[in-house]
């Protein structure tokens, strides 16, 4: 089993979710995060002083999937989250040694 994680631009979430859904992914977990990277932050002004804020709002997706699906998940995210501008985000994959569905106790593929 694989855990595919992706950090993307927030306004792309809906599109990515729909794309994954149509390719048969049945679930995912989403977290609001702050990203630091090549995409610079922005300046804020507060009573005459200027501040540099380096973090940019991003959304993190976590998708558990079968080994065979992972390539497909990655591709789907890459395609739909892509704008071509700096800050589009990263995808990474980690091995999950076990997956369980709490409701039924099903394990592995069945738990997805």
């Amino acid at each position, binding site marked *: 089993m694989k855990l595919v994680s992706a950090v993307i631009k927030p306004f792309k979430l809906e599109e990515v979710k729909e794309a994954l859904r149509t390719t048969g992914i049945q679930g995912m977990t989403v977290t609001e995060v*702050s990203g630091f990277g090549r995409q610079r932050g*922005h*300046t804020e002004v507060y009573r005459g*002083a200027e*501040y540099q*804020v380096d973090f940019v709002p991003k959304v993190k997706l976590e998708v558990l999937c079968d080994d065979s699906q992972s390539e497909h998940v990655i591709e789907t995210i890459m395609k739909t989250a892509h704008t071509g501008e700096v800050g589009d985000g990263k995808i990474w994959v980690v091995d999950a040694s076990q997956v369980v569905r709490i409701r039924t106790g099903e394990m592995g593929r069945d738990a997805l």
Partner: protein
Amino acid sequence: MEISSGDTAWMIVSTALVMFMTPGLALFYGGLVRGKNVLGTIMQSLFALGLVSIIWFVAGYTLAFGPSGNTLIGGLDFLFLRDVGAEPFALAPTIPHSVYMAFQMMFAVITPALITGAVAERMRFRGYVLFLLMWSLLVYSPVAHWVWGGGFLGLGDGNVGALDFAGGTVVHINAGVAALAAIFYIGKRHGFGKEAIHPHNIPMVVTGAAILWFGWFGFNAGSALASNGLAGAAFINTHLATAAAMLGWLAVEWIRNKVPTTIGAATGAVGGLVAVTPAAGFVEPWAAVVIGLAAGMICYGAVSLKAKISFDDSLDVVGVHMVGGLVGALLTGIFATEAISGIEGANGLLYGNAAQLGKQAIAVGVTIGYSFLATLFILKVTDMLVGVRVTHEEELTGLDLSQHAETAYTTVDRGTVATPPVGAGSTSASHSVVQRTAEG
């Protein structure tokens, strides 16, 4: 006449109440937009309180209410508020002229602020500044003059004789039509009709609506310009229509969407406030209830329509202020009775004066025509000079950062994720790459 301390007390308070409505509107609108646009939205109202007040001081008041021999525009006697002092003025003979002027000022402030809801989340701030300046002088002041300042639409020999107690036409239809024009000119938001664009803070919306309701007592009952039975009538009509409109909206919503919503309650109430505005000092309480009910239901319908025709009136200014204003202006022509206002002949259809409905329609029609065209013209000029719409990139980023270099909400942790204030001694080279998001 002598200055009455009681009337003056009420009118000073009314003026303060109407001033409070503009920040109330800022919260009402601010809660309805997404979190990245809340400050940009609030600023549009807040800034009107700054700029329009000064415009009014300089020329707005005199163009609306300055004595002028003609019925199209005021004279220049009151430029810079010259001679606007402690002595009463003909239109409000028991209070200091300065108080009357200040009361009217607050109306001039909130009217253009109302428009901003229609094009929320996409207007360029510097464009807004210029728009505000021109709209105040070229649209608000003339229309106020026409209806209240001795102009051709209001009461008085040879004039149309429309009844507009507290601004159904001058304020709400006027702003609502300008909103319509602005939507046509400025266009939809990115994602409109595809993504859900949810209000980010509904308690803020309710807070704003509550302040509007509270302040509207000054708006309507204050338009009696005295502390008397007429003010009492306008007060109770205002409240009853608002309550009825809330119920009207919720009833339809409960049937059609299977659920009564908080935003529905607040929006219905605002619709009622709008609709009763022209009628407040002219109708009986039962008629106010009818006006309110009608407004609540009709505004619901108007607003629902929007989704169908893919028309991005972001915060429903047309659906609530223009439509609500129309409901009120026309029903005033039906329900008005001189028994309430004490103005001879101020009767509507129901009291045997069918002509009044026609007069109301003329005033409404003229205002719609003028406001629409003049607003389009102003937007065009503004656009040519400084631009009225933010860039696509700025729109995605949000107005708060792109127009004002601010973030509305900062959690504790984020408090530490920024670099030192410029000039506070930080010399870390890694901070030198400062990319300005703000376009200014």
